[in-house]
């Protein structure tokens, strides 16, 4: 127990680091995932190709490898940013591929006729997608997007290996101080639970509010 009480600020720092990584990466992943899903159903062929390549590359690259590519690769091209920003980029882009596919499966649950009706009224592709198709797709993608965001929260632990402050990384400091590793991990696990259960709760509320079939 005293692992937690006497090192509360270390835990808190790590906890907040993970929260920060999760929030920023989630926003990035949701925005990019939305854009890529739009690309993948666009009437323009080159957009579809771009979306498909994006998903294929990012979904099939191990996240650790992606971290190496971003953190060590991008500076070689002259792009030097704080490691935390790089970590958010890597996590966000990686997760966007999964969000994109979840959104796309949601889009596919909306009957074709809905889009056809919108287009036959003269609505553009963007209007059709944003006002008719996605609001209906949204209902069915809440659960899978929730799972993806939870996975993102846990994946953020990889950033710790690249000297970004986050929750799992606190074990290194604490084990050097000689604390029992089991209890250290126990409290780290509790920290992750707090974050993931919060995400679950948020998505449960969203589902109650929007997920009900009309």
């Amino acid at each position, binding site marked *: 127990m005293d692992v937690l009480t006497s090192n509360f600020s270390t835990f808190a720092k790590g906890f907040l680091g993970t929260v920060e990584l999760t929030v920023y990466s989630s926003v990035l992943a949701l925005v990019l995932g939305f854009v890529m899903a739009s690309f993948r159903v666009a009437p323009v062929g080159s957009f579809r190709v771009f979306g498909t390549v994006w998903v294929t590359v990012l979904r099939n690259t191990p996240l650790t490898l992606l971290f190496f590519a971003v953190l060590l690769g991008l500076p070689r091209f002259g792009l030097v940013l704080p490691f935390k920003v790089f970590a958010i980029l890597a996590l966000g882009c990686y997760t966007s591929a999964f969000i994109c596919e979840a959104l796309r499966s949601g889009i596919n649950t909306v009957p074709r*006729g*809905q889009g056809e*009706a*919108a287009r*036959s*009224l*003269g*609505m553009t592709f963007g209007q059709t997608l944003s*006002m008719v198709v996605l609001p209906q797709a949204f209902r069915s993608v809440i659960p899978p997007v929730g799972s993806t965001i939870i996975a993102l929260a846990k994946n953020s632990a990889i950033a710790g290996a690249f000297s970004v402050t986050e929750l799992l990384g606190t074990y290194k400091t604490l084990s050097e101080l000689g604390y029992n590793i089991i209890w250290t991990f126990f409290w780290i696990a509790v920290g992750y639970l707090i974050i993931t259960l919060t995400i679950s709760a948020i998505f449960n509320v969203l589902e109650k509010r929007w997920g009900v079939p*009309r």
Partner: protein
Amino acid sequence: MAVDPLIELRDVNKYYGELHVLQDINLTVGKGEVVVVIGPSGSGKSTLCRTINRLETIQSGNIRLDGQPLPAEGRALAQLRAEVGMVFQSFNLFAHKTVLQNVSLAQIKVRGRKRDDADKRSHELLDRVGLASQAAKFPAQLSGGQQQRVAIARALAMDPKALLFDEPTSALDPEMINEVLEVMRQLAREGMTMVVVTHEMGFARSAANRVVFMADGRIVEDRTPEDFFTNPHSERAKDFLSKILKH
């Protein structure tokens, strides 16, 4: 007959892979004309209807609306589609929006009307199709016939030059068919240009200026309803009519 052509199809061909679903289609629909397309299923009549606002693309030939060739994807196509209303077999009302929002949405987003003006117009149109009291409901709360009448109001809200009906009564219970046909007859009387794909021979007889009979992707006959029903020329049409008019 067609003094002032509104919809023109010239040598239109369409394939689904190997299947030649539209073969050298030539069709002109004049302003104010009501053309009913009939034929056995799989004859390409729905496809024909859907090519007119490019929900289906064609491989060759050309389609003109009010003298203008149908544009490819993009803003120009969207603008043109706004001029041609479409009513679907499965209604396709926006399931997440109320009846009123269904009718108002495109007025606001496509025609750029203010919400109040759009809603006012929607109420007028809903009143016209006899559904003024249902404006606040969601589509799933209405019967099929009511949904289809909302769909007609939604199409009319754009003040289209022509209306396309793709089997508008095929998904309806028999007792609801008439309420939809009555709205369509009313529109026909008011001079709306209409292309109607249907199996309702009674409607074809009473409201159509011309009947187009399709079989196997071709237009086999294109004549006045009176001529067609009393004296079909082709064997194909005779056979079709003998099968459907018996019972």
